[in-house]
């Protein structure tokens, strides 16, 4: 096996070069060439990533390999290098990012071809992949943070890609600011780590923690992990910072697939899995993570049920699925969470790209009430989308089944209530996904006549990625078969040198089969319900709870009234009253009173000698009196 891990810097280097070429020549580059350069850069990274993956998989691999580039920040005893870490966890994420990234680049060459900003688009997309790779490859938290904020920037740029629309740039701004709130948590977490351990390097930190020699109190570890988790709620769209993700659908659809489904939003899961050693020492934080994850999974699923925008349904579904992953992390099933990251990346990218194909055919229409019967005109899109729906709903033998089953089992082992609620969320998932599928692809067409005439299957550059992702959505789960089916869980074994599940309980085989049966039956039932409800849909004005769901529980309005507007009001008060009238008023007041005093004093200069003598005598008398009493 070649020594690929030493060449790891090539993986982010290729997209960086792609970004620089397209970015610097943005106004000279032909569109097609920009697409080729952008895609080729990611393909090259993918090739190197494959080499690294096979090297790491080889039993002779002694990990982790750390590649130092140069000292980034050095001051006194503080030394933070720009360094990459190659191990099982990072190499797995490399494959997901560059692999799916490449497919989405190829898809974009066709999807974005009509857009005048295509060169800029590929520059941003390459910059995103570069940042994401930094995030994953960093050997310390600071490099992760660089990538972390970098992907946030690219997300901002791509959500606001069509910058002429006010609504879109608002969404971009919202995404960036909400991420920044999380980033402050990340930053404080880093400060705590540096302050207590004097290092940000994973290897040094986890060695210290693992050795049991550290004298840092467990309350500090709890605070550190909570701070990092706050960062994760921002990036991975969890309660309370999830509301930016649905708005982020303003960006081009392939961006939603890559950034807002498959890769960037899973950064929070990566971060916690990476810090598994530390989180295992903070049971309180793990409980918080589990509760927040489960609550998010449920909340987002309820909202998804009443959305009519094809991308919004998928967005809330993403939030909900991310919640599942955090639930897994929270019960200590780190590798299971990563497993779900992978399968979710396959089927959610597939469905987003599928929705892009639909939107493309519908000439920009995203409202599923105006679709219907598209399956007849768009065979490939329809079948691949169906595969995605089956996978996410956890229908047996599809990839999502295995990863979701693993999460549910782990949740049950931890606490049966978690399991019950998670099954509830999974039932809703099956329902809203098939609601989406039936409304879009079956029945009769409900749009305009022109739209119907325009309907067509997308070109090969778009359908090929769909087909590849569909295959992965089917077979992707077989690397992580549950214990009752196979002795070897290849996925967990691969990750074992880096991160292991924590506090695993072993259930009896019968129990595991029973749980599997319950969740499968629940999902299939909900698919049936969706079928009966939406084969022949009727849309009425929603009332009561349905209306609340349609308005996303009014969370945006709530945030607006308890956070945004008070801050604006406070700022206005500070500007108008405290600043202009208060502080500046005092400053000007001092000036005015000096002037006033000067004017008064000037009155004394009357020019009459008699008055001066009078004052002089008065002064002498005063002095004498004073000195008389003074001496006494």
């Amino acid at each position, binding site marked *: 096996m070649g020594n690929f891990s030493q060449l790891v810097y090539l993986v982010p280097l290729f997209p960086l070069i792609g970004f620089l070429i397209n970015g610097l020549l943005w106004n000279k580059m032909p569109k097609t060439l920009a697409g080729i350069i952008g895609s080729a850069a990611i393909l090259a990274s993918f090739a190197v990533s494959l080499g690294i993956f096979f090297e790491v998989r080889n039993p002779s691999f002694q990990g982790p390999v750390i590649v130092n580039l140069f000292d980034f*920040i050095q001051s006194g005893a503080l030394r933070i290098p720009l360094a990459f870490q190659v191990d099982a966890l990072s190499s797995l994420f490399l494959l997901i990012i560059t692999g799916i990234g490449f497919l989405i680049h190829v898809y974009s060459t066709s999807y974005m071809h009509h857009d005048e900003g295509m060169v800029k688009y590929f520059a941003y997309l390459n910059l995103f992949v570069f940042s994401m790779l930094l995030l994953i490859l960093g050997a310390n938290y600071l490099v992760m943070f660089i990538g972390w904020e970098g992907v946030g920037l690219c997300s901002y740029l791509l959500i606001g890609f069509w910058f002429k629309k006010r609504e879109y740039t608002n969404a971009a701004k919202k995404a960036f*600011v909400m991420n920044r709130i999380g980033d402050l948590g990340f930053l404080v977490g880093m400060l705590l780590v540096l302050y207590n351990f004097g290092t940000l390097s994973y290897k040094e930190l986890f060695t210290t923690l693992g050795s049991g020699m550290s004298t840092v109190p467990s309350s500090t570890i709890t605070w550190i992990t909570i701070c990092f988790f706050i960062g994760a709620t921002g990036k991975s769209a969890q309660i309370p910072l999830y509301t930016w993700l649905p708005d982020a659908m303003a960006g081009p659809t392939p961006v939603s697939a890559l950034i807002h489904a498959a890769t960037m939003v899973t950064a929070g899961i990566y971060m916690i899995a990476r810090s598994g050693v530390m989180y295992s020492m903070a049971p309180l934080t793990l409980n918080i993570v589990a509760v927040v994850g489960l609550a998010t999974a449920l909340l987002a699923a309820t909202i998804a049920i009443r959305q009519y925008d094809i991308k919004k349904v998928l967005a809330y579904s993403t939030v909900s699925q991310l919640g599942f992953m955090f639930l897994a992390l929270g019960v200590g099933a780190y590798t299971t969470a990563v497993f779900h990251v992978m399968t979710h990346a396959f089927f959610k990218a597939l469905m987003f790209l599928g929705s892009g194909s639909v939107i493309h055919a519908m000439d920009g229409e995203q409202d599923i009430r105006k679709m219907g019967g598209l399956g007849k005109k768009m065979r490939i899109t329809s079948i691949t989308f169906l595969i995605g729906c089956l996978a996410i709903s956890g229908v047996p033998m599809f990839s999502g089944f295995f990863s979701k089953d693993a999460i549910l089992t782990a949740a049950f082992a931890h606490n049966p209530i978690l399991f019950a609620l998670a099954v509830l969320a999974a039932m809703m998932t099956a329902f809203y996904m098939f609601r989406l599928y039936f409304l879009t692809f079956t029945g009769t067409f409900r749009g305009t006549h022109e739209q119907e005439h325009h309907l067509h299957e997308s070109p090969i550059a778009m359908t090929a990625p769909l087909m590849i992702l569909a295959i992965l959505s089917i077979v992707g789960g077989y690397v992580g078969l549950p214990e009752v089916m196979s002795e070897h869980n290849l996925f967990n074994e691969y990750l074992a040198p880096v991160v292991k599940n924590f506090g695993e309980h072993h259930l009896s085989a019968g129990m595991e089969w029973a749980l599997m049966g319950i969740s499968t039956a629940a999902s299939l039932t909900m698919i049936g319900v969706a079928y009966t409800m939406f084969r022949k849909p009727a849309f009425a004005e929603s009332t009561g709870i349905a209306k609340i769901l349609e308005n996303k529980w009014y969370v945006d309005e709530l945030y607006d009234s308890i956070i945004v507007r008070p801050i604006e009001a406070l700022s206005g008060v500070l500007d108008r009253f405290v600043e202009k009238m208060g502080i500046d008023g005092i400053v000007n007041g001092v000036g005015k009173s000096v002037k006033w005093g000067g004017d008064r004093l000037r009155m004394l200069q009357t020019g009459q000698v008699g008055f001066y003598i009078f004052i002089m005598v008065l002064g002498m008398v005063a002095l004498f009196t004073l000195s008389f009493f003074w001496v006494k």
Partner: protein
Amino acid sequence: MILLLLILIPLITGAFSFAVKGDAAKALALISTIATLGLSAYVSAGNFSAPMSFDQEWIPLLGTRFSLMADGMSSMLCLLTGIVMMVVMIAQINKDVENPGSFYGLMLLSQAGLMGVFLASDALLFYVFWELALIPVYFLCSQWGGEKRIPVTFKFFIYTFVGSLMMLSALIYLSLQTPGANSYSWASITHAGAALPADKQQWLFWLIFIAFAIKMPIFPFHTWQPDAYEQSPTPVTIILSALMVKMGLYAILRWLMPTLPAGVAYWSDVVVVLSVIGIVYASCIAIVQTDIKRLIAYSSIAHMGLMCATAFAHNGVGMHGVMVQMFNHGINITGMWLIVSMIEQRWGTRDMTKLGGMASSAPQMAIAFVIISLANIALPLTNGFIGEFMMFNGLFGGMISNHTVMTVLAGLGIILGAVYTLNMIQKTAYGEKTTMVMAKDLALNEYVGLAVVITLIVFLGVYPKPLLDLTAGVAQMIVK
């Protein structure tokens, strides 16, 4: 001798400039600033184990000597002054001012004063240069400024002059405490000050601190600043915000901290609290501004607040971060003002509610604006991040009460900073084209000026080592 030249080149060319008319004055100023930059780059590349110095008898009667010294911090700030002044002159190439001879003459005189402030190692000499840097700015502001320039300049003048006098009286007091004949040399002043009993240091602290706090400015001594930035012509705003605010911070680090250690230790908590209030307060006010110049002015108060808070946290990494940030803030805010002046020149307004669509009509300018704004909110891999990260480290690990609370409150600045900065981008760069005026994209000289700024932003953001190496020694020395 080279240090003397750093002052003499702008001083002589500046004086000469008054006699020159038209474009020749512009050319003279450009050549002069390039020459000074070259020299300051040479000084910065030097070896600081034996710092460059210059010493000459000056006014023996008062016990003051003409002595200059360049360590890492001084030469870094001279380099910053050199770069900023050159970029300003490059940006001025396609702009016209009334009475160019006097305008550029005053600019150069101010540069001479700045160089002197950063190099002087004699307190009285320092004071003289401090005033030499300021006085030309009063004239520039009152002669070439905006509509409300007279009252604004008057306020600015009174404000800073009161501060200067307080500083002067403190310096005289300190020199009277020096053993033997009066001396104003850095060594004897700091020695005399540090030997004073704690209660004396505590009240002397405020005499000196207020002068520097006004200059930075620190909440609540800041109200002259947004008005002055708004009313000054852009080249002067750049001198004020990129360079003169650094005079205040530099003076704290160079003079106040070593001279009155007990006073500084006693009042550190108060200063940190004021600075942190300033960060949140100025950030909030920035959110509701509609004039870009005022927005950036408040943003700058917030940034200076973080630097000042960290300086008083007395931590090695933090102090190092403050040094780095002094340089980077100067570069970034110069870039900001350049863009603002281009906006004003093209669209005739700085009111964000009337702007929009720059990304469509002047895309190169919009790209530059976005990059500089990102540096302003300290995005990693821009120069702004390095200092900010180190400063947060320093604040968190600093010797102050409630360091966690202070750090988190100061951290709110990075969220609020994102809010107002992205608002500004959205309102100016995005949206539909404003049809009022057809705007041209960057002219060649504007392109070059911004390219210098952006190159530094990216280079020092990715590879900050040169800057860190330059200032490591001084940072360690101050916190010792």
